[in-house]
């Protein structure tokens, strides 16, 4: 007799990951009302993650700075440090991959992975796998396992730090009594939450009881997605592809800006393209990061319109991002995030045919001109086709293919 094991998805949630990294450790946050400063200046924008002490004053992530300071005058602001966060998050993911987990990172501090295939490695039960994950993480984390990613996240949010929750019942049954606010965890369904709450739909069970077609009528694809999640349906986690990080950094001796910064960027692009590990592959996405002179760091991921390996085009795209630097940079870093096919340029099949045809035409025109003189190939150029005077309608011009 065969035994079928239902798929279980684990979710690890490390609260305030970015804030802890920016503060230099969990101990530095103890008892302090601290928040990540709004990006691009101290006077405007929304706060990043906030500490528990700040939350006690009513300060929330995403709150306007003025309102936060009115609620908590002693609030300390920390500069965001995306470079350090990315490094710490990568190290965390690698420790999880070290126990055999195929991780799907959602954002720094939140990761999912399936338990299938790990049970035999770690003693045969879900509890033992999660215990191994907790040992690997080596920091306070909320761990949960459930039949779907969404349900696992809901369980992780409900469990206490250092505790583990495993949902044995069906995902739909577990989610039934939970608030629709959980839909904020997905970018697609987040805008629906306020409307659903206004309509009096408070729980996922009430949402699941509605017809999917009705939700599709009212909210489109986002409504269908929300209904799927509420009914316990979700896509399985997709493990990330582990690739060798390709990164180049340049220290800027003085506070540099403008042209000098662009020249530094050009050097980084040259170095990155010259790396043998690239093996001729094109770049599909890259991250431009900078360590700032006044503390903290800045980073932007740039996805190119098409995979490319041309210095000029990369520079054109990346240099435009340098304008968003909030302060002078002391170190500039360029990292290849994703690679494309190992070819110089990606072209569509039809465009290739068109280009080929143009090249042949150009060659034919050149041969004609060499044999019959420069007037051998001319183009009829329309000037005023509707003119009453015939000689004003069209003229002959040299053919330029």
């Amino acid at each position: 007799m065969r035994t079928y094991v239902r798929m279980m998805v684990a979710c690890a949630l490390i609260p305030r990951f970015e804030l802890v990294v920016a503060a230099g450790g969990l101990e530095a946050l103890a008892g302090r009302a601290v928040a990540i400063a709004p990006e691009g200046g101290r006077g405007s924008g929304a706060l990043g993650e906030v500490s528990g002490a700040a939350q006690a004053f009513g300060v929330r992530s995403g709150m306007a700075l003025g309102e936060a300071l009115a609620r908590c005058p002693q609030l300390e602001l920390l500069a965001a440090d995306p470079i350090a966060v990315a490094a710490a998050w990568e190290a965390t993911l690698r420790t999880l991959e070290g126990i055999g987990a195929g991780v799907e990172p959602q954002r720094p501090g939140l990761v999912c992975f399936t338990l299938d295939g790990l049970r035999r490695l770690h003693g045969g039960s879900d509890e033992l796998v999660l215990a191994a994950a907790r040992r690997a993480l080596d920091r306070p984390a909320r761990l949960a396992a459930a039949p779907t990613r969404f349900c696992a996240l809901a369980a992780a949010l409900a469990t206490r730090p250092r505790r583990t929750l495993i949902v044995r019942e069906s995902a739909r049954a577990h989610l039934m009594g939970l608030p629709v606010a959980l839909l904020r965890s997905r970018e697609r369904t987040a805008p629906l939450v306020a409307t659903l709450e206004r309509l009096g739909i408070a729980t996922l069970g009430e949402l699941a009881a509605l017809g999917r077609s009705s939700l599709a009528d009212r909210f489109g694809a986002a409504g269908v997605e929300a209904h799927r999640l509420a009914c316990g349906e979700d896509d399985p986690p997709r493990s990330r592809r582990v690739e060798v990080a390709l990164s180049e950094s340049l220290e800027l001796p003085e506070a540099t800006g403008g042209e000098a910064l662009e020249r530094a960027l050009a050097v980084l692009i040259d170095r990155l393209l010259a790396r043998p590990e690239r093996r001729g592959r094109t770049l599909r996405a890259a991250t431009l990061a900078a360590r700032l002179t006044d503390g903290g760091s800045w980073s932007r991921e740039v996805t190119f319109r098409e995979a490319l390996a041309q210095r000029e085009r990369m520079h054109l795209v990346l240099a435009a991002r340098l304008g968003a630097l909030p302060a002078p940079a002391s170190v500039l870093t360029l990292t290849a995030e994703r690679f494309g096919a190992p070819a110089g340029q990606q072209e569509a099949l039809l465009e290739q045919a068109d280009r080929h045809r143009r090249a042949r035409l150009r060659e034919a025109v050149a041969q004609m001109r060499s044999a019959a003189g420069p007037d051998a190939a001319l183009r009829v150029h329309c000037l005023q086709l509707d003119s009453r005077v015939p000689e004003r309608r069209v003229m002959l011009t040299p053919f330029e293919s």
Partner: protein
Amino acid sequence: MSGTRRLALPRAARVRAAPGGQPLEVDGQTVAHVRESWLIEDRWWTEQPLRRRYWEIVSEQGRDLVVFHDLADGHWFRQR
């Protein structure tokens, strides 16, 4: 490059016309039929106004020709 030029430029023509202006013979070809006639007055606001009486005719050889009489200088031209 020397290839740039206008198309359908007027060429001088030898035309024998009736007192009313209707062409009877164009470059030695007898006119068999007048298909259409029209007047163009353009650029009258400049110092080089354009006043032409066009005639579309069919010669006895069966050729379709377009000629015009420049009303400013009195010359005849073929344009097709």
